């Protein structure tokens, strides 16, 4: 799995917020083998690297760090946060969130495209948190993004893929763009479904962090992601309406 030319071993990405403790967070990474950790810099930031003890813990996980602009409601906030993240984590990767609705945390598509263009020109490798909208996806690619992170459902809901048709369309429209289903997943089966549809990876936070046993849930998701990917690569059978017996019926004593 490659993002902006960087090889990542795992197709599972985990957020780092809301865990009962940093140790549980580390256990979740260890058991799941997740390859990328997303980190919110905005809330934890303060003067003089006030959050550095926690960031050191994240760095010690030994996985790639993808800072995000969670909680930013305007292009300016998102750009400033991205620039701060670049200095703090010494990476030009940024998961770009521009929130358009405070209650549902839905992305602001207009601000997202504007911020993505600005940050790309500034040398960032942008991972935009977007909806399943195909037109918006096209604009983000035009703005220079080489990865897309469409939501399955609104952040923290655990509803799974709420617009399966839209997700299939998006995948079919841009078959060669790495796409990560970000947000809204609650169960491993939902992650498996996203992977079966050909998505390249999934990103989770609440579903793991708020589970009763986060490390076990992380492992459950890791296995589901692997299962879903294997199924996608194996070229699944086409469903059909009529039963098709796997052994021939002719010649069997079926009239007894």
């Amino acid at each position, binding site marked *: 799995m490659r993002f902006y030319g960087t090889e990542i071993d795992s197709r599972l990405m985990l957020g780092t917020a809301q865990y009962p*403790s940093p140790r549980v967070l*580390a256990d979740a990474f260890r058991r799941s083998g997740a390859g990328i950790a997303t980190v919110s810099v905005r809330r934890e930031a303060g003067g003089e690297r*006030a*959050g550095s003890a926690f960031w050191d813990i994240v760095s010690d996980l030994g996985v790639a760090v993808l800072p995000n602009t969670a909680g930013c409601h305007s292009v300016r906030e998102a750009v400033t946060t991205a620039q701060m993240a670049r200095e703090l984590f010494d990476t030009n990767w940024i998961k770009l969130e521009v929130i358009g609705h405070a209650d549902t945390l839905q992305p602001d598509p207009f601000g997202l495209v504007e911020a993505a263009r600005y940050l790309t020109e500034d040398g960032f490798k942008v991972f935009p948190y977007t909806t399943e909208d195909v037109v918006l996806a096209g604009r983000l690619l035009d703005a220079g993004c080489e990865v897309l992170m469409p939501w399955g459902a609104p952040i923290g809901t655990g509803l799974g893929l709420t617009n399966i048709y839209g997700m299939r369309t998006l995948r079919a429209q841009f078959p060669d763009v790495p796409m990560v289903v970000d947000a809204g997943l609650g169960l491993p089966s939902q992650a498996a479904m996203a992977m079966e549809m050909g998505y390249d990876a999934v990103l989770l936070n609440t579903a793991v962090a708020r589970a009763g046993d986060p490390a076990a849930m992380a492992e459950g998701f890791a296995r589901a992601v692997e299962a879903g990917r294997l199924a996608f690569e194996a070229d699944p059978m086409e469903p059909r309406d009529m039963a098709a017996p796997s052994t021939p019926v002719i010649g069997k004593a079926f009239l007894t």
Partner: protein
Amino acid sequence: MRRATVMGGGVAGLCVATELVARGCEVTVFDPAARPGPHSCSWWAGGMLAPFCEGETAEEPVVRLGKEAADWWAQQGVAVARRGTIVVTLGRDRRELDRFARRTDGHEMLDAAALARLEPDLGGRFDRALHVSAEGHLDPRAALIHLRERLGRAGVAFVAEPGRPDGLTFDCRGLVARDKLPDLRGVKGEMAVLHCPDIRLSRPVRLLHPRFPLYVVPRAGGLFMLGATQIESDDRRPSVRSVLELLSAAYALNPAFGEAELVEIGVDARPAFPDNLPRLRRQGNTIHVNGLFRHGFLLAPSLARMAVEAACDGTKPEFWHEDHD
């Protein structure tokens, strides 16, 4: 052990000093301020003695040891209210209450009428609630001052400038002890105090919310403590966003809080180790009592007892670690 030094006059230091004095020890406490105050993070605590509720996210020892706290504080002569805790959710988060109930013990589910009987000012606002009856709460500042004064009367010297330690040292400096404990980190907590004589609550109320959890602890004289954020940072500046969240959540609990006087906004950083569990860590002639995280008043009594037992009786209690250079 005849003599001992305690560094730090927050909840951990005062509890350790109290246990030492009970063993007949001659104690000196080093603390930059003469009395309990805003320099220690326990000054900003909620004062909930709620081991069952904490079990939602805390590990098992917090629940088990936390059950000893209410008795310990009462034995010291601190006023402990033992009327339990109420846990509620707003309408669209109602399944959060089921999740909370599954993951904690010691509660019973109340319907609207039963809740109104216990807390009339929450009546009609919630169709169900959990009552965790075996929990309590205290006024943390009154408790700290009470211990401090009693220790003073018992002959404990409180000294501002750290001098040569006499005998064994109990280092209870919280986050300041990071110079000796590199794996200690700060977890920022913001709180507010409101004066709202229009609302009466007899026990702490927890509002479960996926993004803005809140607890309200009633204090004497119509005061309410609202807490608390939990942010991975040792920054000590209260943010507008956090205070907005706390106040909005309180307003959602009962709109009469909108008429309250905003008395105080507080912020500090809790000392925590990576597993958010405390440590008794021996380094040479020093025993560190630290990492109490958000459980200062809940765990300090047990930790103090264990630390002093280890020092006097040579036991190796839970959370005991020895650092060898």
